């Protein structure tokens, strides 16, 4: 890892972002045909990553990268093993198809360029996510996928549903991201390792760490939100507000699998524990069942597919958590299969919507003749989804049952869950793939057909892939499945399943599934009605829960803010001074910094006492003044008294200034008050008076105690001695105070006069700038206006 060599991988990882920069311009030039140009980027990425296949198949792990933030020990480093390579290939391969498909689907959209830009950025983020070695780089890309998907879901920003779905996705996945961040940082803290590759190699027993549960929960928080596990699944179907290419790409093939990727990635270090093998299957299984049941209820093809995506993710999580080697293999196979068939089916749904004008399976039908290629792709993908040979889905299904089956309560339960889930997915796959094409022809739009090549190329290629990968399963396993399973399992694994059925338990279970599926398919309308009734009876779901969460948070915040920021200066002041009392009193008492009992009061001569008494009288008179002028004049009294005190204690300059300032204060008070008609005294209720009195007395006592405590210390007068010594000899001034002001500490005075000047200007602007037309100023001089 120390030898950071320049590498094409680095530029490959950056290339989608660079392409995103140019996408709008290209689209302006070439219209939707820019898709062909832009698709070169993912294609090239695909090609680049496929060159790693032989090495990775041989069990090598390719790492590389650069120092990014050495100060924080964060690298821009990548890790290419079976897991990340498979993901990278899926992302770039399907990505290329999606870019093309987008060109057709959004052919005349005014913001197609922007769309390309977003989707390329997303692709780059996803690619970065799966190839990241460094934790923080991983997290950066993780959040980038949330951000870009926010933009894509809200692409159709004029509809409220889109905006809501976008925010929902951002909140759920962004919130989950924070858990993930905490989890990753905790791992970093516990192990001192911040790179996946090192973590996987280190054999540090995270599982034995006291922080294991915390890490586990935090990582799951990230994974489950991103991968839409029940009960946080709701954002994913809502994300179908995005244009269909987005749904096909993000919400089936790639982003939603980021959570699964994370679980798979960390399986070697976090797995093999009771928590892992209990929690994951429970959440996964529940999500599987709930997802399929909710899918049954839908008639919108996209939504049906979206809910089955939820269930598929549940299945993947369940398998990953199950813990056996076979289950991991099954998860790997199913993940690949799902990416292909689900991407294709979404594109099919989009194509039908685009051509026939509706995605509602009850509103379209009989399109087989007019859209033969699309139909073929749909049909093939549905076969794969249903787990029927000779498609890749079949291999996955066989392996699932092989992995789960075990004559024990827990595996049996999970097997049952898998059967029900798969059976229902079988139903939906065929509902989407058959209903629009069979039966009598009906379509709201006019002249549906396969449309431009951009529109059908994607589903067709993916359908073919489903077939080819299954037919040449040995190759697939050699290059894809085995390396990936090895990575997930953390030790060498090889996959062998092929489309030639082997007699055994998995086959029987598959047959059971198919039988269940066929029965269910025939009763799909009844099932749908039942589900609708059930959900109506429950009447509440996490989706509404989201609205309630947002509203509740806003309302709570509003109430809290009203309490802490009530808008009344009086309360602010009161709080401030209570804080003051606390800030001084509490530490003084707690840390025993109270002063010693003061000695006998310092000697005061008669007139000193008199002056101080006058000051006090002036103060009290300010308090109790019946009218404003008395208060002002009393203010003058205490000011004069202070000036006299200064004089008595050897501070003529202070006294001088204090006299001047105090008088001027009183003068401007009088000048200003001239125009005000105010109630002079404030009427506080007895209780309020008491509280205010207590606050002020406590604060004052605090200050007095602290002052006593300070003055009881020996004093270091070296500064003043210095000033006294050099005031005349070097600074040529006999008045030490003035010399301090203009020489020793002239910079203070410099700032001080700036204050005076600014205060003057501020007051001038306060007086002069008035919104209401000012009364013309009495002046005889027309040039006066100029001067102001």
């Amino acid at each position: 890892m120390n030898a950071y060599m320049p590498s094409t991988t680095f530029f490959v990882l950056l290339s989608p972002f660079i392409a995103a920069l140019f996408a709008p311009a290209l689209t302006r030039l070439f219209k939707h045909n820019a898709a062909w140009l832009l698709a070169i980027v993912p294609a090239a990425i695909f090609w680049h990553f496929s060159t790693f296949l032989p090495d990775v198949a041989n069990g090598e792990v390719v790492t590389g990268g650069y120092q990014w933030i050495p100060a924080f020990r964060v690298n821009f480093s990548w890790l290419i093993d079976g897991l990340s390579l498979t993901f990278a290939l899926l992302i770039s391969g399907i990505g290329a198809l999606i870019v093309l498909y987008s060109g057709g689907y959004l052919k005349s959209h005014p913001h197609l360029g922007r769309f390309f830009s977003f989707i390329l950025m997303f692709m780059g983020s996803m690619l970065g996510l799966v190839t990241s070695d460094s934790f923080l780089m991983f997290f950066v890309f993780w959040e980038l996928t949330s951000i870009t998907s926010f933009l894509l879901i809200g692409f159709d920003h004029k509809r409220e549903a889109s905006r809501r779905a976008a925010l929902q996705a951002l909140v759920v996945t962004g919130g989950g991201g924070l858990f993930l961040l905490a989890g990753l940082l905790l791992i970093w803290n516990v192990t001192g390792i911040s790179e996946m590759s090192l973590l996987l190699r280190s054999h540090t027993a995270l599982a034995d760490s006291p922080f294991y549960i915390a890490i586990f929960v935090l990582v799951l928080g990230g994974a489950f939100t991103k991968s839409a596990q029940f009960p946080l699944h709701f954002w994913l179907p809502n994300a179908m507000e995005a244009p269909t290419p987005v749904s096909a790409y993000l919400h089936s093939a790639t982003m939603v699998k980021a959570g699964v990727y994370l679980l798979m990635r960390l399986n070697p270090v976090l797995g093999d524990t009771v928590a892992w093998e209990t929690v994951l299957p429970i959440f996964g299984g529940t999500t599987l069942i709930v997802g399929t049941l909710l899918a049954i209820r839908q008639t919108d093809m996209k939504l049906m597919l979206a809910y089955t995506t939820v269930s598929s993710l549940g299945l993947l999580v369940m398998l990953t958590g199950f813990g056996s080697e076979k289950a991991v293999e099954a998860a790997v196979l199913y993940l690949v299969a799902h990416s292909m068939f689900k991407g294709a089916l979404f594109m099919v749904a989009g194509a039908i919507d685009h051509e026939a004008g509706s995605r509602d399976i009850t509103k379209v039908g009989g399109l087989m003749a007019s859209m033969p290629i699309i139909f073929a792709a749909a049909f093939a993908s549905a076969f794969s989804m249903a787990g029927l040979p000779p498609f890749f889905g079949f291999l996955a299904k066989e392996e699932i049952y092989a992995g789960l089956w075990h004559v024990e309560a827990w595996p049996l339960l999970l097997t049952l869950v898998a059967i029900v889930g798969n059976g229902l997915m079988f139903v939906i796959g065929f509902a989407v793939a058959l209903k629009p094409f069979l039966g009598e022809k009906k379509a709201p739009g006019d002249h549906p057909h396969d449309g431009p090549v951009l529109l059908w190329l994607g589903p067709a290629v993916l359908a073919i892939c489903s077939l080819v990968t299954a037919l040449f399963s040995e190759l697939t396993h050699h290059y894809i499945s085995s390396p990936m399973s090895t990575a997930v399992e953390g030790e060498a694994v090889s996959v062998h399943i092929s489309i030639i059925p082997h007699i055994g338990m998995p086959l029987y279970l598959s047959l059971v599934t198919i039988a269940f599926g066929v029965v269910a398919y025939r009763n799909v309308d009844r099932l749908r009605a039942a589900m609708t009734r059930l959900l109506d009876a429950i009447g509440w779901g996490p989706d509404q829960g989201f609205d309630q969460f947002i509203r509740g948070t806003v309302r709570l915040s509003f109430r809290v803010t009203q309490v802490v920021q009530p808008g009344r200066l009086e309360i602010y002041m009161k709080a401030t001074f209570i804080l003051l009392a606390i800030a001084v009193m509490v530490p003084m008492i707690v840390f025993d910094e109270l002063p010693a009992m003061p000695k006998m009061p310092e000697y005061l001569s008669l007139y000193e006492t008199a002056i101080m008494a006058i000051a006090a009288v002036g103060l009290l008179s300010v308090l109790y003044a019946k009218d404003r002028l008395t208060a002002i004049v009393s203010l003058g009294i205490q000011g004069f008294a202070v000036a006299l005190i200064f004089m008595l204690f050897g501070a003529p300059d202070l006294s001088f200034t204090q006299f001047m300032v105090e008088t001027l204060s009183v003068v401007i008070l009088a000048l200003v008050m001239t125009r005000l008609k105010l109630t002079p005294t404030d009427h506080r209720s007895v209780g309020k008076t008491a509280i205010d009195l207590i606050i002020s007395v406590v604060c004052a006592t605090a200050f007095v105690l602290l002052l006593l405590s300070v003055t009881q210390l020996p004093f270091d007068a070296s500064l003043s001695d210095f000033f006294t010594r050099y005031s005349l000899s070097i600074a040529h001034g006999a008045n030490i105070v003035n010399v301090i002001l203009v020489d020793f500490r002239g910079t203070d005075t410099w700032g001080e006069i700036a204050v005076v000047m600014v205060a003057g200007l501020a007051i001038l602007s306060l007086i002069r700038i008035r919104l209401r037309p000012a009364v013309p100023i009495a002046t005889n001089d027309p040039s006066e206006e100029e001067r102001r």
Partner: protein
Amino acid sequence: MTLLVGVFFAVAIYLFLSKHIIRILLGAAILGNAVNLLIFTSGRLTREVPPILSPDDPVSNVVITANPLPQALILTAIVISFSFFAFLLVLGFRAYQELETDDTEEMRFAEPEDQEMPPLGY
């Protein structure tokens, strides 16, 4: 002296707790004095020996005078608090003109009483 500082603070803070701008202003003026006296006391007190040397005789001049540094600091503080006082006074005056009140309870223009809940939709 220390006690007097306390009285100054108590009165100033009590005035600050009023809901009338004008009273708070008076409080601000007194607070300034309170702080000055505090710094003055904090720098220790000396009676009646101003820190002024005799220009004719610079050598024998190193006598014990009142501590000049706190005086300089207080001078700066006086000037600053005077500037602030003047500004606040005019501000209060303008507030009275524009808002037609000096009661802070009624001064609710920046943060109105009936603040609306932000929109809850999307």
